[in-house]
């Protein structure tokens, strides 16, 4: 294809109006560089389009021009600013309300950043306080629960003692007791025959030893169970004893013995009534 044919193929119009493909554009620019007549043809069509569009121009609303100039004023200021900084000169003060808007925006931004930091530090302080509160609240709850358990324990003990069917057997120390001044009390429910033991005072047994409660039934000792010395005031439930004339406590091997060791008897109490 010679240049004339190329010119008349419509490629000029297609290129100028932006409808040519990337390859077509590249080829056209190559051809333009080589052929002045192609450049002339391009320019001729460009002028046709330009004149046509100028003829049919529609004036845009007036406010658009001022908007555009406000935009480019800002850009100009920025450009100028960059240039001046690069030359290390004092920036020249420029007029224009946008400068004040920009300054106000910067001040607002800085202010907002400071406030953010302030609120964040406050937030951290309160988060710590809150965590402390939660911890102390949890502690109080657990103390409260322990107290409640204790109170319930005492309450059930008291209820038991208050029962009119409850016989109380005081058990002072026998003269041969290894520990004079020892004392225990048996609460014996005469209707259910349940036996509860309260240790008023007994020395702590040596390791490997355990106290054993005996019910004396018709002169014979009956095992009523072994027990440990516990802290606090609480009744320990022993074995159920249908009938007894007295109760005694001896110190035996751990786990208890089948028959009591007489010389190891600490306390003895007779059932009255």
């Amino acid at each position, binding site marked *: 294809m010679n240049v004339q044919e190329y010119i008349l193929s*419509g490629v000029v119009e297609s290129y100028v109006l*932006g409808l040519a493909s990337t390859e077509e554009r590249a080829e056209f620019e190559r051809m333009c560089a080589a052929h002045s007549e192609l450049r002339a043809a391009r320019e001729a069509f460009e002028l046709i389009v330009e004149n046509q569009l100028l003829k*049919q121009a529609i*004036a845009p609303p007036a406010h658009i021009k001022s908007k555009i100039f406000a935009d480019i004023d800002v850009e100009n200021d920025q450009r100028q600013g960059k240039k001046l900084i690069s030359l290390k000169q004092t920036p020249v003060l420029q007029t224009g309300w946008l400068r004040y808007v920009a300054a106000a925006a910067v001040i607002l931004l800085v202010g907002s950043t400071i406030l953010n930091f302030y609120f964040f530090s406050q937030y951290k302080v309160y988060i710590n306080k809150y965590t402390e509160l939660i911890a102390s609240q949890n502690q109080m709850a657990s103390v409260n629960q322990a107290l409640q358990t204790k109170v319930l324990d005492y309450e059930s003990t008291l209820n038991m003692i208050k029962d009119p069917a409850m016989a109380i057997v005081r058990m002072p120390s026998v003269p041969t007791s290894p520990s004079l001044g020892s004392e225990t009390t048996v609460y014996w429910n005469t209707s259910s025959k349940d036996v509860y033991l309260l240790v008023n005072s007994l020395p702590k047994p040596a390791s490997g030893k355990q106290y054993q409660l005996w019910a004396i039934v018709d002169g014979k000792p009956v095992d009523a169970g072994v027990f440990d010395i516990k802290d606090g005031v609480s009744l320990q439930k022993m074995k159920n004893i249908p009938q007894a004339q007295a109760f005694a406590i001896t110190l035996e091997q751990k786990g208890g013995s089948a028959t009591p060791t007489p010389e190891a008897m600490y306390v003895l109490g007779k059932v009255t009534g």
Partner: protein
Amino acid sequence: MGIPATYTEPELVSALRERNEQAYGYLYDNYSGALYSIVLQIVQNTELANDILQEVFVNIWRKIESYDPSRGRLFTWMLNITRNASIDTLRSKAYQNSQKNQGLPENVNITSQVTHTNIDNIGLSKILAKLKPEQRVLIELAYFKGYTHEEIAQIEDIPLGTVKTRIRNALLQLREYMQ
């Protein structure tokens, strides 16, 4: 620097490169109307057209360094910036969504929709009206709607090569009418 009433194109370009606001004012006063008519014809919405024109002129100011005189006249460069910005808006998701209630055009009625726009007596309409309907549709789709040749081939259901030839012929015809 004196205040020329008019500029030759190289004078104008070099003044613009110096960011001369007076030259820029001259550019706006002389060419905004021509470019605005194209924007209006593409987006057919005054508010949108105003925004696009503003964006276009700010971009011309910003990108004047990228104008290469060896590739064509300043006006041609500005016209292509204008057309691209308008078509980008037209084909952007946001704009398409705002038009959604009108329904997406089917292949068939794109043609009728396109011929419809010619009622508007703006821009190149009068000249386009002189074209044969089948040529007018191609120019509308390619130039004013921004469809690629491939897309047009699909829409109109004609081979790609035929699309290219027909568009070129339509452009040559258009040139005749503009002269």
